[in-house]
């Protein structure tokens, strides 16, 4: 276990984070949350609604700041950064995937994916070039000129995932990525996450679905603003130790 932590880089460090919403009475959404996500991990944060997992997603994604405690993303203390610097951080190091996809219907898939780089300062030609690559990763390279309205829900979520991946972020945060999909389609999306995990992408999936969480190598279970369990599946641990960046033994996966 110690070897593992030394040999891998922390991407996201959450330390003693609390979040209190100033209402009457104040709502304590997060209460002393600490965990570390290392490079190449695929983690599920699972909990019933109201457990604080969405608030945690906001804080991990620097869309919101903790009341107390520290969040470090790729070693940077989020609290020390100005709003515009946080935006730059999101533009270059965080990829978001949402339950509702949030694709622009008037744009081609290529430009939807390219928008993931819009605020990182790339030219349109460069954005499209990278978007083509990202679409290839999610298996939609042939539909680059299609509109989102011509796609199924599962395909739309693949486009959204490609948009999250296009800037090669340090971490991908997915909020209920299968929440709007039927179970078969959901499975294919989860399989895509597995595939990306094999390629070394760091992914955190927020879900309320125990079945989804159980597929993941690591699960962080939440309840009422606390972490109640943080478990790493033994079989997947071997993957991580042997190859933090690249899965050499895909056959050993369950």
């Amino acid at each position, binding site marked *: 276990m110690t070897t593992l932590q030394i040999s891998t880089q922390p991407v996201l460090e959450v330390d003693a984070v609390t979040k209190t919403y100033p209402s009457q009475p104040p709502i304590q959404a997060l209460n002393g949350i600490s965990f570390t996500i290392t490079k190449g991990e695929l983690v599920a944060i699972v909990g019933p609604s109201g457990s604080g997992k969405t608030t945690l997603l906001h804080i991990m994604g620097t869309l919101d700041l903790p009341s107390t405690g520290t969040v470090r993303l790729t070693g940077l203390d989020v609290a020390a950064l100005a709003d*515009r610097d946080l*935006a*730059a951080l*999101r533009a270059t190091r965080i990829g978001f995937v949402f339950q509702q996809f949030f694709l622009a219907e008037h744009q081609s898939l290529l430009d939807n994916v390219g928008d993931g780089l*819009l*605020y990182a300062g790339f030219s349109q030609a460069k954005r499209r070039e990278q978007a083509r690559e990202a679409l290839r990763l999610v298996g939609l390279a042939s539909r680059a000129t299609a509109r989102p309205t011509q796609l199924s829900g599962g395909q739309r979520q693949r486009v959204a995932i490609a948009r999250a991946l296009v800037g090669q972020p340090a971490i991908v945060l997915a909020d209920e990525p299968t929440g709007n999909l039927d179970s078969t389609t959901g499975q294919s999306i989860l399989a895509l996450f597995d595939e990306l995990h094999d390629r070394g992408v760091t992914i955190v999936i927020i879900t309320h679905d125990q079945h989804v969480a159980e597929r993941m190598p690591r699960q962080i279970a939440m309840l009422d603003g606390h972490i109640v369990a943080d478990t790493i599946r033994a079989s997947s641990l071997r993957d991580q130790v042997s190859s933090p960046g690249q899965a050499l033994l895909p056959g050993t996966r369950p």
Partner: protein
Amino acid sequence: MTAPEIALPRRLRLSDLGRIASVGLRTRKLRAALSALGIAIGVAAIVAVLGLSSSSSAGLLAEIDKLGTNLLTVTPGQSLLGQAVQLPIAAPGMIARIGPVTQVEETGSLTKVNVYRSPLIPADETNALAVQAASLGLLSALRTSVAQGRYLSAAAAGEPVAVLGAAAAQRLGIDGIFSGERIWLGNQWFYVVGILNPAPLAPIIDNSVLVGFPAAERYLGFGGHATTVYVRTQTDQVDAVHGVLAATASPEDPGGVDVSQPSAALVAQADAQDAFNNLFLGLGAVALLVGAVGVANIMIISVLERRSEIGLRRALGATRGHIRIQFLAEAILLALLGGAVGVGLGVLSTAVYASAKGWAIAVPTVAWAGGLGSAILIGAVAGLLPALRAARMSPTEALWSV
């Protein structure tokens, strides 16, 4: 571990800004068109008013130019005691001796003589027509011409024949020259030989019935004193001639002579037309104001509807500044669209009206540039509040409150 460093937020490229600012316009075309319509109407009104006014001025000035600005008129004024004076009989001859003078023509009013269609018309119904004795070269001095028939000739000038001014012919009900056409003038028949075109430099001729000087003296008891002397001069000597005309026309009483330049009065008239435009400009400004309110309204609705887009952009790394400039640019684009359409409509209506009137089409730069400029300004002002609202929205609120 690599040293923690953070890329600075990037400014959007202009092409990208244009693209994202036009999202609202492209995806909601009808709404965009309707909200731009208010501004289009306002700008169109302003451009058309300014365009029409300058086209009509240009038309008038072109006409004045054609008529020549080197015409001076000499009329008797009043003596020091306020009595009417007469120009000396010799005045036209004296004026003709001034070096730069190229042409001298004269008319003499027969104030006591009235003209009627026939002797059966009651004496009161004079139709406000004047009877004037006119010299033979008058038409060329006034740069007008005969519409029908012919003008007085040396042979006809001593006979009871008359030529009608344009308005005079209309009032007498004579629209053509027929053999034996005659009018009842000073208690006798005069034969009508011609009808004139309008004479813009001497509107009084339009209302007059002209007879020859010899005929006026023989049949109508005319004393021979000219009441208006029309003087054409060399163009570069107008002022010099103007200065000496009074003394030349009436050496004994120069103060009793009025000298004027009819073209100057027309120029002043062209300028005076602008005064009416203020009303329409005011109406245009009100339309612009209403248009601005419409754009602001649409933008506020747009910001509310597009919360998730705003949230997504923030998640993709947009700063508050990026969101602000996006919505501000969208409002400006919307207003600019309206402004461009408005300028087009304004120029088009100016062109149609001006060409119908036979004027040159003149849309002053200030009209179209001002129209577009004010549209941009209106867009910026109208879009400011919605843009600030959009930028203030917290990303979590924008994304998760759908």
